[in-house]
């Protein structure tokens, strides 16, 4: 029983990490209808900026979020204004390739600057855990889970209670109607890309608490982010949170009760099933 509870708790904690790293991807797709292959680049930039701030200035990764969020927003909005915007009426595959190119440039730039070695962060709480009854919960993972839930609440409130959120939802529902109603669509696109990138970079900051930092970091998690977004409903932030947690639990239960080697197979099976079901619904 303790083992089952441990596995469930681990699945929930891992799942909230999945959700946090996927919020930005979902938001950008929802508003721009663009599959952001540069998402992996922003995740990777997040871990590198955090690692660099920690090793250079001793800055705690949690504090570094105060830098990665605005930096991510600025970089994301710049990418949208200078690159994505120019291709907005092109076929989707063009934007896809463009953003893939952005990712490759960032990855290779990081190789050039930092090399390819695995690097890690060590803080005073990196290896701490909290005993809750018979369970032992990792403090860094609890922190990331708290941020994931906080991110969901802030994002949900922003989308529902602010004018910017209303504009984002309006453009997501019908770009032309939103434009006719006076919504500055171009600015909304930049804001959406900026917020999505800021979320990705802050997710990278938090993930540096337990994952090693390499230029391939984004590649490791991009597919998982896609799984969560597809499963959660592409534009539904609440759905993404639930999907992330569901995927985390499914993976951990599979790893524990069937075989650890099948852990990642779960993601692919879920992705395939979700796509097939969505296709069936569409038909």
């Amino acid at each position, binding site marked *: 029983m303790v083992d089952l509870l441990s596995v469930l708790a*681990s699945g929930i904690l891992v799942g909230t990490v999945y959700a946090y790293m996927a919020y930005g991807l979902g938001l950008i797709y929802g508003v721009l209808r663009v599959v952001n292959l540069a998402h992996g680049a922003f995740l990777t930039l997040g871990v590198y900026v955090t690692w660099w701030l920690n090793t250079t200035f001793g800055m705690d990764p949690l504090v570094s979020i105060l830098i990665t969020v605005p930096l991510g927003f600025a970089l994301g909005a710049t990418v949208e204004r200078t690159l994505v915007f120019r291709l907005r009426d092109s076929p989707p595959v063009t934007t896809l390739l463009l953003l893939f190119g952005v990712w490759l440039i960032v990855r290779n730039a990081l190789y050039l600057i930092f090399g*390819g070695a695995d690097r890690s962060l060590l803080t005073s709480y990196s290896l701490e855990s909290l005993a809750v009854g018979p369970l032992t919960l*990792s403090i860094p993972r609890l922190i990331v889970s708290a941020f994931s839930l906080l991110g969901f609440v802030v994002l949900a409130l922003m989308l529902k209670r602010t004018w910017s959120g209303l504009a984002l939802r309006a453009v997501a529902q019908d770009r032309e109607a939103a434009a006719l109603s006076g919504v500055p669509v171009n600015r909304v696109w930049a804001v959406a890309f900026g917020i999505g990138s800021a979320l990705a970079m802050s997710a990278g900051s938090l993930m540096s608490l*337990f994952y090693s930092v390499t230029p391939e970091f984004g590649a*490791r998690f991009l597919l998982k982010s896609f799984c969560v977004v597809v499963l959660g409903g592409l534009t539904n932030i609440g759905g993404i949170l639930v999907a992330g947690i569901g995927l985390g639990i499914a993976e951990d239960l599979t790893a524990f009760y069937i075989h650890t080697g099948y852990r990642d197979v779960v993601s692919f099976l879920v992705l395939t099933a979700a796509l097939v079901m969505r296709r069936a619904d569409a038909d």
Partner: protein
Amino acid sequence: MTPDSRPRWFPVLGLLLGVGLFQACSGGGDDTIRIGAALPLSGKHANVGGFFRDGYQLAVEEANAAGGVEIDGVRRPIELRVYDDKSDASISPSLLERLIAVDGAVALLSGYSTPLVQAQVIVPMRRGIPFMNAGGASKSIFREGNQWVFGALSPVESLASTTLEWLMWEQDQDRLPKPLRVAMVWQNTDHGREYRTGVHDVIEGQTDRFELVLDESFEHLSSDHTSLIVKVRSVEADVFLSDAHEPDFLLQHRAYVEQGLGHIAVSYGARGPERSVREGLGEAVSHLVSAQWWTRALPYERSRHFVERYEAQFGGPVTEYYPAVAYEAARALITAIGNAGSTAPETIRDALKNLELDDSLLPGGRLYFPEESRLQIENRCVIVQNQPEGGVRIVFPPDAAEGPAYLGS
């Protein structure tokens, strides 16, 4: 003479002159003996690639300081030519082709990492050029009928078998119980599968000493290891063995510590002494046991000599095995060229087959390339244990041990 009446052999003469000039520029016309390597000097293995270049360079400099090698009664210098394959297995083979065809390399040294070396070995086997491998331990590199690829790194299986030999030695000292309950997890790669084979080969003949209570693989770059560690906890083993590359090792041992596990002995294959590991996990890596292909404290004259030379030239304590095995591989190749007394590939190959360095810095003190293991050395590794204050201590084999191992409860 009008332009139309120029002799037809003019273009041929021009071509020959061009080739001659090119040969002269590339050094092919002098008496230098050229050896080459395609190393990952950028990309994901850049840091290790640098260690290999330094190790190779040191061996070449030593050989040249001693007057080079004697070919046909004339002493000739060795030149090492290195290209950067950017850690890309699709680039590496073409660089080796270039080393052979353009630079005139008479023998090759390997790059680093099993996938890169697997891609490289196709070239020397097809071209019939001696290839000295110090960067990939997997047996899959050494194919049936192999005549050209020589391995200075013992197989991955040796990591596992030496670790179990150490455990048996501790049992014989009455410091460990019999049978010992072993939980083993391994990365689902060639490296991990061979580690598993090494464990099974020993355990199957020692059922009174070992009971394998968990034998499970995990995927490379897994996003979480907590459920696997919970599984390890549930089997209540005495010893925990894992074979993982660094990113998985860091995540797995983090989960191990977070879940509050403790075993008599914990080993992650060759992982543990690296500086990056201590930077990432701090004191949590104290007392980890690892099997190494070399460590600086080995009590051999050649090993001490290497440490002094390397640290004098490159600075800082040498904490990784990479430059040492690279140095030894290059030294073996240069010695074989000298023994061959010729730069003909077949002659160098035969000299390598007959080579036996009795002053090797590798564990066991001997470097050789046995035919029965497809020209891959089969030495035992050395077992070291991380110390709480930093650094490592050799705990096995007994003739090299610096002290007893700390065993958990």
